[in-house]
């Protein structure tokens, strides 16, 4: 059975899609080449402690990568499909486990870990032999650490507590990605807030020995420790013990993965108890809106709070700027705190980029109701403004008031421009770049594929960021006038809120039926488009 499943996986790889895999392969190989280059014994080479750092980061990506994308289902062979076969789940999971060793991730990690062989080479053939053994042993541990964490996360996502946990994990990862550099920058440029660009030159040549010892003691560093011990002739015990530990820990993790997968194969994914209203919600009395728009706003607010996939996005978008503020606050760069407000608008835009595809074929109701398309676009915008736009502006103002930052006025102007741009552009991009996943009626827990909107997110991110920066730049160019900054923010906000929704409604009128068709035929279209059409 293992051979059959491996052949199936290779065939699925061959049939694509290839774009994302090819990108990961090329990027991964470049990074792996850098790690190997760093381990070369050459004059003026970097401290070998940095290899330990690089391998720790690499291992960290295996463990934390799945947590950063909790909605992403990495399995290539469908578990749903296999569940129908009369095979014992444990046996099937065990056979599946060996197919998990195939993929771009293991390949590039293998290349990266070959730096251990380069590192051990000066120690002679015995050291090289130990390092050669350490490479697959370390790879084995990393793969199963990553896979088991991913399986555990998928299991937890079937509960509402898991949803919150997934949102917190995503927010932590995003906050670290976007603001994790600030403490280092604040260390290098401690007086930037006062306009002083004097750089503190750090001594990065050698890492402190205790740091390297800690990294080598972590499971991600056991292979590194074995290679160094072999090179330095520390004795067979010091070299072989870490290898045995790698294999033992890897085997335990593999067993854990098999148990979790067997459990998933044994019973269908259970539904998270949906968040139900205590009493059916009332229509919102919204000022300045028609009953049509108010109806859409009520629907959107309920959906944001009750849809598990949107719920994860909502929580992570709210949490991320707060965590960023927590990272920045203790540093010398507290003057940058108000910038968390425009960042909140950016994150709000990124999580609202796929709402049409997430609502799925419910689009038919809008397309068959007179005047509904315009109301839908306005309603989505109003709901976004209530959930993300206004809070991001209020957050900016509050952080300005708390810090008295010289950037405060520009940050508020930036938040206004960013919120308006995100509010207007998100529905348009949701139509232009829909990431179609499981239809809304079949999506009962957040672990299910709700479409991968990475393309849309990567598009709206620079757009909203540019809008956030523009008023400040215009103000600075015009001599630092606060009025110019404020006026340019208001004009930009007015222009996008006026013009973009017109384009969105037009797009819905012209291509709404095509989008509905794509969403209705998604399952078959992905597999065999011509077959689906022939059925009609």
């Amino acid at each position, binding site marked *: 059975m293992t051979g059959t499943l491996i052949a199936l996986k290779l065939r699925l790889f061959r049939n694509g899609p290839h774009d994302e895999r090819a990108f990961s392969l090329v990027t991964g190989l470049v990074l792996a080449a850098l790690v190997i280059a760093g381990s070369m014994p050459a004059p003026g080479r970097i401290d070998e402690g940095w290899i330990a750092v690089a391998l720790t980061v690499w291992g960290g990506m295996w463990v934390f990568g799945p947590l950063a994308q909790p909605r992403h289902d990495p399995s290539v062979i469908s578990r749903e499909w296999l569940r129908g076969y009369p095979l014992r789940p444990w046996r099937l999971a065990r056979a599946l486990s060996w197919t998990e060793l195939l993929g771009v991730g293991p390949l590039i990690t293998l290349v990266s870990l070959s730096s251990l062989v380069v590192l051990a080479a000066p120690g002679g053939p015995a050291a090289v032999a130990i390092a050669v053994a350490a490479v697959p042993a370390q790879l084995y541990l990393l793969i199963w650490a990553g896979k088991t964490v991913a399986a555990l996360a998928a299991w937890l996502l079937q509960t509402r507590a898991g949803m919150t946990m997934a949102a917190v994990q995503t927010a932590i990862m995003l906050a670290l990605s976007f603001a994790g550099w600030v403490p280092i920058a604040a260390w290098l440029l401690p007086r930037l807030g006062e306009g002083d660009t004097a750089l503190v030159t750090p001594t990065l040549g050698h890492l402190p020995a205790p740091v390297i010892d800690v990294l080598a003691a972590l499971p991600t560093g056991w292979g590194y420790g074995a290679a160094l011990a072999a090179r330095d002739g520390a004795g067979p015990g010091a070299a072989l013990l870490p290898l045995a530990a790698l294999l033992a820990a890897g085997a335990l993790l593999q067993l854990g993965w098999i148990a979790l997968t067997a459990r998933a194969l044994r019973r269908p994914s259970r539904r998270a108890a949906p968040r139900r209203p205590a009493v059916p919600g009332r229509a919102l009395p919204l000022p300045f809106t028609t009953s049509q728009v108010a109806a859409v706003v009520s629907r959107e607010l309920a959906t944001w709070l009750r849809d598990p996939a949107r719920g994860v996005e909502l929580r992570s978008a709210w949490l991320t700027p707060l965590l960023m503020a927590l990272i920045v606050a203790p540093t010398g760069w507290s003057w940058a705190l108000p910038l968390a407000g425009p960042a909140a608008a950016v994150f709000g835009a990124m999580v609202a980029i796929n709402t049409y595809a997430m609502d799925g074929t419910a689009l038919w109701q809008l397309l068959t109701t007179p005047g509904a398309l315009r109301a839908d676009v306005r309603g989505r915008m109003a709901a976004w403004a209530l959930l993300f736009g206004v809070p991001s502006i209020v957050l900016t103002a509050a952080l300005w008031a708390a810090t008295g930052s010289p950037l405060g006025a520009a940050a508020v102007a930036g938040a206004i421009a960013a919120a308006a741009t995100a509010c207007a552009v998100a529905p348009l991009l949701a139509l232009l770049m829909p990431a179609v996943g499981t239809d809304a*009626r079949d*999506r009962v827990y957040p672990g299910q594929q709700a479409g991968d909107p990475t393309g849309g997110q990567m598009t709206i991110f620079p757009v909203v960021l540019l809008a956030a920066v523009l008023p400040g730049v215009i103000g600075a160019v015009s001599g630092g006038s606060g009025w110019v900054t404020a006026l340019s923010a208001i004009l930009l906000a007015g222009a996008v809120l006026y013009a973009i929704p017109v384009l969105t409604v037009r797009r819905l009128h012209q291509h709404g039926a095509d989008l509905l068709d794509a969403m209705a035929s998604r399952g078959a279209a992905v597999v065999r488009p011509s077959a689906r059409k022939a059925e009609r």
Partner: protein
Amino acid sequence: MPDFSVPAIEVADLTQRFGSVLAVDRLSLSVPPGMFYGIVGPNGAGKTTTLTAVCGLRVPTAGTIKVAGHDLRTDREAALAQLGVMMDGLSLPERLTATEVLRYSAGLRGLEDGWQGRASDLLEILRLDAVPRTLIVEYSTGMRKKINLALALLHRPRVLVLDEPFEAIDPVSAHSIEQVLKQYVDAGGTVVLSSHIMDFVERNCRRVAVVAGGRVLVEGPVEEVAAGSTLNERFIELVGADPVRPLEWLR
């Protein structure tokens, strides 16, 4: 009372092409107002494609569609305002309850006061008021059909277009839906439906169109189309059913 001089639905030379596949081939239908009208045909005949085009959910390759005299291409909003639609297998705002989705629909259509009474009646008759806190996403197939019917009727349309309203539901739910539809037609409404349930079509529809290969094979009063047989027998005769050779390995 409906205006009997204007067909409820008029489809002329409807053609729908998907790449090289011709799903609907110059199909023409005229549905008189105030009756049940059935469209039957084998899978892949073009029934759903035709109804989808009638509802404005697909732009036809060629041909014209009029709803109560309003051309769907040139007078789309007026045509849509006459329609109540119930499509098979599509989502609704899934995170709302039945009451919420009816309120949403009323708001979206800008309905005046009075819809609340109709919504209560529909929820009660279709037995959806027993689960006031249940979200649409948790509904069974039968409950989905019922809430779709309630949504289609809420604004009192002149024409109901129903795609497979009795597919995959239990007899009790089917009975509820049938009773509501009968009341609707008795009050002058028009129901155009596609179905594989020949028994229902024979019992309730006044006219029927048998569609296969994207064309209308025969159309007319049900008794005439059945031509002395049951509608099911006549359907198989018209569409043709290949003989199934005995499978030795099943013995």
